């Protein structure tokens, strides 16, 4: 059954969309990730214009992160002060990001920039995940191996505007979470993702936050940043397809619940390795589309300068 989507201006098979939403939801439930970084490329593969895929995904991620953030908030796993600083950065970054997005779209280069961003980040994250799970697997077979230092003092600890974050038990410069927020905000606007896959490692390794509050705090921040992206993409580019987003939301929440149940039964290093493989596969597919000779050497856009 095909449905016509008014902003994407094309008809798409509903069952294919439900399968995509359910599948990505399943993965996001299993691995505790937002799934935007998988859904946006899948939408692009099925012919949705990249700009519409990005705008619509930002809208979907709002819904996906609300239910997760609420669950973490109930368990007290959100550092609101840290979240607020990240959020200020996120607003700055995503507003700038949408501006860059519009500028690149006018230049006719947005599609390739989206693709390059995806190849870069999917490649890096996928490789890190695989390496991490391999290391964890090796360590589990050889428990005596050294673990490395937990806390290291670097130049980052000399930065000004130090702040105390009680929930995270940290006393660090506010500039650090601000910078992380800005960076993730830009990615969110250009790639149509929540950015959890960049923010979570940055919070653990760069800011040194305890893992218990990392996911809740990042989800809290993601709600507002993706809401900002949804708003700005609607105003500047009219690329948010609410009907497409709703179709994906409906299927992905169901998938996520099933995924959470499955995820609890699998070993975490296996999970991480599996997700790493999925991420790398999607990244390779995007890369292939960039380097292979295109079916047509021309592309069309509306309007001139």
């Amino acid at each position, binding site marked *: 059954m095909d449905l016509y989507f*008014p902003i994407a201006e094309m008809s798409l098979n509903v069952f294919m969309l439900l399968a995509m939403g359910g599948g990505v939801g399943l993965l996001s439930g299993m691995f505790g990730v937002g799934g935007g970084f998988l859904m946006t490329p899948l939408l692009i593969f099925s012919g949705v214009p990249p700009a519409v895929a990005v705008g619509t995904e930002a809208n979907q991620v709002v819904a996906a992160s609300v239910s997760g953030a609420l669950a973490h908030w109930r368990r007290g796993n959100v550092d609101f002060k840290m979240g607020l600083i990240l959020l200020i950065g996120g607003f700055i970054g995503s507003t700038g990001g949408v501006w860059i997005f519009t500028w690149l779209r006018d230049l006719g280069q947005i599609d390739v920039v989206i693709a390059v961003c995806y190849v870069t980040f999917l490649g890096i994250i996928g490789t890190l995940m695989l390496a991490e799970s391999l290391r964890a697997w090796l360590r589990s077979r050889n428990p005596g191996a050294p673990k490395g230092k937990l806390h290291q003092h670097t130049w980052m600890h000399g930065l000004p505007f130090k702040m105390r974050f009680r929930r995270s038990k940290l006393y660090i410069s506010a500039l650090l979470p601000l910078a992380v927020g800005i960076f993730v905000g830009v990615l969110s606007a250009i790639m149509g993702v929540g950015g959890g896959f960049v923010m979570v490692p940055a919070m653990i390794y760069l800011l040194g936050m305890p893992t218990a509050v990392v996911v809740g705090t990042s989800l809290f921040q993601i709600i507002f940043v993706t809401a900002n992206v949804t708003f700005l993409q609607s105003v500047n580019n009219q690329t948010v397809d609410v009907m497409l987003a709703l179709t994906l939301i409906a299927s992905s929440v169901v998938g996520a619940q099933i995924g959470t149940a499955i995820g609890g039964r699998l070993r975490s290093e296996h999970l991480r390795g599996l997700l790493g493989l999925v991420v790398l596969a999607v990244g390779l597919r995007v890369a292939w589309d960039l380097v292979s000779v295109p079916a047509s050497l021309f592309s069309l856009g509306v309007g001139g300068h």
Partner: protein
Amino acid sequence: MGCLLKRLAGLSLAAFLAATVPAFGRASGPLIADLSSKQIRITTGFTGTSLLLFGAIDSAGDVVVVVRGPRSQTVVRRKERIAGIWVNGSSQVFNSVPGYYFVASSRPLNEVTDAATLNRLQIGADRLRFSLAHEAGAADKTSFRDGLIELKQRQSLFSVEPAKIQIEGDRLFRADLSFPANVPTGPYTADIYLFRGGVVVGSNRTTLAVRKAGLEAAVYDFAHRYSALYGIVAIVIALFAGWLAGAIFRKA
């Protein structure tokens, strides 16, 4: 009985021709035509559609139909390989490119008339001419124009081969005009030409409109006319959906 029906049919055709043919000569020329519908509505289940174009001619000849969609300025960008990846390189801007172009003919075009006439009337996608918005860099115009036409054909928006027009008894003709799912919205024209001995002896123009209807139209208009409010509504819907999903599954 059968004989009577045949005679009746013969009579009615004769009556039709008697009533219409003299009228061609005086008022509307040797050709009249109309569409089964003047409007295509794009609704939720839209996967493309076809319209029936029908009409009558005063005596034997060839009929050619050309349908053109809404015109707009179109940028054509050529991909170039930079550092191994394909990026959009140089571009040309063409004026008034039809969003849709469809041809139907009673016989192959080259049997209907000569190349000069086909070129003059721009019948056949490969004979379309577009003017450049900026004259600079006009040297490359042809390859960009060919690229544009090829892309539109790939998107099923420009016809590759003329569709078939059936003529019954040298008088009545009919053609199915097909519109794909990605058909652009806006005003359309259908030009109908009657050829005899390679010369246009009559022509007729009829119009139709393609527009989004129902929920699709409402969402599209809302997004473009009140885009800030649309963005806020999109966020509220997502917030509610996320909260609802969490609430349902927490109970379950």
